């Protein structure tokens, strides 16, 4: 618990320090809002459809990588994950984790989703870094270019070569993926997750890689076109923003400026690279021959549409997604290649093995027939959960009890730990499920001692309350017993108070037991 808080604290600290240093340049950009009043409106409005088209191309790319036919879940998961990644420090990894866990509700395997998002992000970055190459003919043709901008272009091309080399290596050979898996596994066992040894991570990574190889491999032309169009429209949006503020720089130089600023957006110190991009874009645009006041205004306009507008859009997408998938199990298209057996590919709360029921407890009064409807006890191993069991035993007559522990598909430590976007979500999910079952068994043991006839059950789901309500409906529980503060702070932040949500949605009695 404390380690978790310390890690979150360090991340927030880094973000705050970075923002402190970047604040002056951010403020300068925001202070230029007055200059937006003399916009060339046709071009300013054009920024919007360009950026929208850029997003549509990104969703197309995600659809190809995920092998999902419908647009809605992919688009809403991408928008929501994107918004989360721009609010929470930890950037890409957190947003990938969030999108993947959302898609798992729509029936897509978490590990495959994470690998697909990683592949699409990689393609996106690669096309962005490849842009300076397009400017090469113009520069050779005699367009004057400042020395710093040329350096930025070379740097971008250098990173591109590295990225392409890494991508090819990861796609073509097993050894690098295996090595990365071994390394990550060692890192996790040494740091984040001491309770349980991680194993089989390299195999998991290779399986996820193979999935991407089939999906992207089948449609690689479409994928490359989608990635290029995504970057192209985004670049057009910046060009339109420049024209809207009245600047008419060489498009080839803007191309290099744009690619260089894209490099800066990858710095994961602030959410979504906010500050880094503003500072970088203003600087590189100035190098490309835009007057500094125009560069500030254009950056502001471009970032308003490309960065700030998708934030509320992500919120709306999340709400729409929840409305659509509340209570729905699967979405995956029938033709999708899946390496999971059909039953486990269903996503969401997966059916868990149930411990065989113990013989009737000795303290039970034989004259009073035991009610046949079981109760559901939610357990997370905390002192409070133990209290909830004891209180239930005192208040309720002896009866059958299902002790349920719901683990998260991914804990926040895991999403942050796997800082590489290539995240073995499926492995974590399996481990969390095993953890959950182990804790549920402890709870069942305690419940047996308290006089219940108890069975253990485990689930992996987010949000927790939905899994609880589902299992309660499944067993037709007479009452749901839970502690009032059973969830760690991070999950409460995203999911709200579990006891409140369960009481609100359960349609059956809920016994809420407070901490001591």
């Amino acid at each position, binding site marked *: 618990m404390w380690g978790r808080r310390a890690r979150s604290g360090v991340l927030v600290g880094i973000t705050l320090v970075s923002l402190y240093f970047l604040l002056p340049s951010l403020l300068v950009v925001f202070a230029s809002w007055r200059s937006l009043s003399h916009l060339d409106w046709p071009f300013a409005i054009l920024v919007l459809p360009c950026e929208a088209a850029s997003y549509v191309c990104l969703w197309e790319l995600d659809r190809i990588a995920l092998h999902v036919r419908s647009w809605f879940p992919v688009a809403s998961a991408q928008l929501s994950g994107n918004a989360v990644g721009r609010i929470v420090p930890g950037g890409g990894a957190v947003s990938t984790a969030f999108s993947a866990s959302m898609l798992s509700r729509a029936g897509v395997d978490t590990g495959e989703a994470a690998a697909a998002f990683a592949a699409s992000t990689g393609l996106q970055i690669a096309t962005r870094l490849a842009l300076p190459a397009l400017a090469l003919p113009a520069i050779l043709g005699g367009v004057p270019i400042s020395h710093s901008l040329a350096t930025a272009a070379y740097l971008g091309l250098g990173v591109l070569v590295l990225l392409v080399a890494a991508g090819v290596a990861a796609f073509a050979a097993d050894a690098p993926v295996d090595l990365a898996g071994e390394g990550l596994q060692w890192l996790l066992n040494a740091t984040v997750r001491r309770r349980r040894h991680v194993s089989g991570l390299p195999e998991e990574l290779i399986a996820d890689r193979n999935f991407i190889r089939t999906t992207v491999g089948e449609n690689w032309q479409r994928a490359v076109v989608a990635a290029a169009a995504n970057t192209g429209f985004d670049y057009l949006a910046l060009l339109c923003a420049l024209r809207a503020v009245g600047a008419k720089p060489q498009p080839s130089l803007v191309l290099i400026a744009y690619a260089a600023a894209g490099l800066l957006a990858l710095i994961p110190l602030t959410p979504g690279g906010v500050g880094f991009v503003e500072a970088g874009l203003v600087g590189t645009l100035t190098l490309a021959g835009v007057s500094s006041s125009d560069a500030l205004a254009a950056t502001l306009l471009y970032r308003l549409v490309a960065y700030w507008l998708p934030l509320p859009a992500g919120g709306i997408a999340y709400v729409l997604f929840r409305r659509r998938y509340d209570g729905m199990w699967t979405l995956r298209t029938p033709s999708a290649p899946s390496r999971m057996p059909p039953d486990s590919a269903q996503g969401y709360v997966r059916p868990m093995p149930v411990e065989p029921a113990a013989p009737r407890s000795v303290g039970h009064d034989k004259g009073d027939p035991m009610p046949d409807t079981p109760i559901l006890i939610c357990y997370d191993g905390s002192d409070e959960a133990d209290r909830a069991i004891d209180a239930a035993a005192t208040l309720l007559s002896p009866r059958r009890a299902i002790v349920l522990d719901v683990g998260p598909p991914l804990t926040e430590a895991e999403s942050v730990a796997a800082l590489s976007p290539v995240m073995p979500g499926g492995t974590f999910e399996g481990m969390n499920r095993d953890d959950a079952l182990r804790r549920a068994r402890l709870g069942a043991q305690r419940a047996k001692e308290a006089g219940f006839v108890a069975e253990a059950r485990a689930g992996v789901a987010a949000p927790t309350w939905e899994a609880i309500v589902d299992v309660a409906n499944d067993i037709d529980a007479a009452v749901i017993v839970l502690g009032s503060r059973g969830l760690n702070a991070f999950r409460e932040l995203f999911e709200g108070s579990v006891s409140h949500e369960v009481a*609100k949605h359960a349609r059956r009695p809920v016994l809420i037991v407070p901490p001591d």
Partner: protein
Amino acid sequence: MSQNPVVGRGPILICYDGSPGSRHAITAAGSLLVGRDAVVLDVGPLDVVAETYAAAGSGAADVSLAVFEGTLAQAEAGAELARQAGFKAEPRAEVDAPTWRGILKVADEIDAAAIVVGSHGFTGLRELIEGSVSHDVAEHAGRPVLVVPPPPKD
């Protein structure tokens, strides 16, 4: 068993307001908390109290007496229901009972083993506007709270 420190030594406190939801709450609680002592507290809505004001005519003493008698009668109706559900039930009236603070004051006074409260089952906007007494009670009670939602409509 009732000496167990995790729950209070007193009876079960049942909040009752005469609504179908709270009648259902008593029945549901009766099947779960078999054969316990219970205090049924009237937490009726304010419009019932307003009618009582109108009926009582003038005079502050008359009014408070009428209010008290009205709520006690309501509590007795709930207690009767609770007895049918298997509780050993006593009625109780408090003028400030409709708020969660009033409910918790009584719960502390009798050291209730648990509080039974019906929820109106609103979600979304209506919950936001009308608030949720059951949620407030559960949050502040410091003792087990059994929240019973309205019966399914089908």
